[in-house]
């Protein structure tokens, strides 16, 4: 079997980064640091898996970062409001979890319906909802920060910090989402349909695939995953503001592209996306641990890697054509 550079390329880059990190600072491989890197990857990672489906079907969602902030905001408001009635217990927390997840589904449904039923470009729709969610969050927080009541925060904290041994819950959730995502993309009818639509939606339509329904489901699925990511994010700080989740959408899209999924759709790589997320957060981590380059240049290095990843993939494709 021929080795596929699309899968191998990002993996080689990831391994190179790990080796580089270990050489620069022995603390890099310490369990505490690895837990830290993985846990920080989890939010973007969970969202990026959903984004992989949206992009593979030929779509795009710019609203996920703002959506996460908005969901965190309404979840916190709901929990604080329920506190007097329900009390300081898991019932209140579960209510917040439900609000975030249901809100994510509804937000994804909104994006998806505008794209498939009103036939507006995904870029335009989600650029619009990105602004709407962001502004609503700032408005709900009245320009400041929405904070979870202290008692609830203490109760909720272990969802981010706790786990099985050094593997915290966000890492476990990320792993489960990635495994499920890979399975759905690779082995389910839905995944096959998503790739077919991104490859050529006319062929999909002529093959009796309900193109609009499948596209809609990719946005709903992404909304659900943003909800899950939010549920894991809220206990980290116990607060949300207009600045929560800024640029998450770009990090998620970058991870998908670095992972080898084609931006024009038709070829989805969930494992690649996972590798892409890890590459991005590892660069951040290495720059913080080593004094080689200023951490302020993190964005610049990530930008170079994104462009490089696409160039390498295109050269591979050009070689295939010959």
């Amino acid at each position: 079997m021929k080795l596929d550079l699309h899968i191998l390329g990002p993996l080689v880059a990831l391994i190179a980064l790990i080796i580089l990190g270990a050489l620069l600072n022995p603390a890099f491989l310490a369990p505490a640091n690895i837990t830290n890197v993985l846990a920080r990857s989890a939010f973007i990672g969970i969202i990026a898996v959903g984004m992989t489906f949206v992009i593979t079907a030929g779509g795009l969602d710019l609203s996920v970062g703002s959506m996460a902030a908005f969901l965190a905001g309404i979840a916190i408001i709901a929990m604080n409001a329920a506190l007097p009635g329900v009390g300081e217990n898991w019932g209140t927390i579960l209510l917040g979890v439900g609000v975030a997840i249901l809100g994510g589904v509804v937000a994804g449904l909104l994006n998806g319906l505008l794209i498939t039923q009103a036939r507006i470009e995904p870029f335009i729709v989600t650029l619009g909802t990105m602004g709407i969610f962001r502004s609503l969050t700032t408005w709900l927080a009245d320009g400041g920060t929405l904070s979870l009541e202290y008692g609830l925060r203490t109760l909720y904290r272990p969802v981010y910090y706790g786990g099985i041994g050094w593997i915290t819950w966000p890492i476990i959730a990320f792993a489960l989402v990635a495994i499920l995502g890979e399975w759905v993309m690779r082995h389910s009818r839905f995944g096959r349909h998503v790739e077919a639509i991104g490859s050529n939606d006319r062929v999909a339509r002529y093959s009796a695939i309900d193109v609009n329904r499948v596209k809609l489901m990719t946005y709903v699925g992404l909304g659900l995953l943003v909800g899950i990511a939010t549920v894991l994010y809220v206990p980290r700080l116990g607060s949300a503001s207009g600045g929560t989740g800024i640029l998450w959408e770009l990090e998620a899209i970058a991870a998908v592209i670095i992972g080898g999924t084609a931006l024009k759709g038709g070829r989805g790589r969930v494992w690649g996306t996972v590798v892409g997320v890890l590459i991005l957060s590892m660069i951040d981590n290495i720059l913080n641990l080593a004094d080689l380059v200023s951490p302020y240049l993190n964005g610049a290095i990530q930008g170079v890697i994104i462009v490089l990843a696409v160039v390498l993939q295109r050269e591979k494709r050009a070689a295939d054509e010959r």
Partner: protein
Amino acid sequence: MTILALKNVSKSFGPIQVLHDVDLALEPGEVHALIGENGAGKSTIMKILGGFLDPTGGEILLDGRPVRFASGPDAEARGIVVIHQEFNLAPDLTVAANVFLGRELGGLRLDHRAMRDQTAALLDRLDTRIDPGTPIRDLSVPDRQMVEIAKALSRKARVLIMDEPSAVLTHREVGALYAQIDRLRSEGVAILYCSHRLDEVAHLADRITVLRDGRVVRRALRGELTEDGMATAMVGRELQDFYPPKGNPRDEAALEVRGLTVPGRVHGASFTLRKGEVLGIAGLVGSGRTELAEGLVGLRTATGEIRVDGKPVAIRHLRDAFAAGLAYLTEDRKEAGLLLDKGLRENLTLATLERFGNLRVDTRAEDAALDRATADFDIRAKSRDMAAGKLSGGNQQKLLLAKTMLPDPRIIIIDEPTRGIDVGTKQQIYAFIRKLADEGRSIIVISSEMAEVIGLSDRILVMREGRIAGEVAGAQMTEDTIVRLAMGVTGNAA
């Protein structure tokens, strides 16, 4: 003195030769009509003359000297102007901007006023009242065609090549077009005129060249050929043994269609398809054949009554058609039929994935289906993982046929069964189609190739301008009869 000529020109696309040793000479002050069936090679000749294609053999002579055009604009710079069909305009630009596209007037700042005025003058000459400031998007189709004509007239043409300029024009506009053609002719411009309207060829042309299968089969001067004579020259060819023997359709109806209407495309089509029958649908490109088929299987919004095996069915989506036992093989293999960047397996099962496992797609069952399909339809591929786009046209078509047959439909509509594939594979596909009919399935074959429709079908419907213009069967199935029905030539049709 001939201005532009083709000498022994041939052209191949890959293994398929579409022009064979064509000689053609365009004289100044003459209208030269080029006629032939769809696929006879008219557009290839126009593209070669206009600099958009290079011939594979022979030469192009300009003023008696061999010439090679680097591109369309290069040919245009030498005075050879092509009037395209109306869809070659930039829809968001204004009429004036389109007319002067690529050679705008003015320096750093464009001289909008001069371009507007000159465009208005050109349109006036064509007796057309279009505001030069209107975006093309807001114009009707005939108006767009008039803009395309005005654009060509604005170039200083020595040779004017017209590709069915009148196809979308109304009667009044055709009159204005004829007047301009007469004016240009008297000014010494050489005109090549392609048209499906034989009456207009008889009226306009000083010289007629008839093409069939990429060869010149008849040359005539004005008055030497009647419309009937042209139709006969365009067709008339025996290839009977190339096609499988005709079948014995049963009397039972498999599909009854009453008053099928696709808004703007098909108007009240009614017909019956019998069990074991191959029913041909002929007609010119744009006569509504594909739209009829797509309306029938739920790919287009349509109204009308459909009965399968005597029972009424409602088909709103392609899925409903599948459920009723109908399948449709598209004419657009590359853009609607196959995922060119995906492997054979993904393509074969795309429309019927639910048959390969509930939750998990069973790739082993898919592979088994692919094994069967490659054997049944003789699909030749280096490997099953290769992209469908890398298969030859013939193997792509066989894969598409296999994909269409996977849901085991009883009624199969095949649109252009052999477009762009080689002769050997054509014959194979004809044999597959007849075999399917002999198994008791019912088949509709839509084709632009007259010989193919006649050779394959037990009975033929001819469409013209969105309506079923007539039905022919048995000894009546001649190219002559069909061409008359398709073109609406009134004459003593048999």
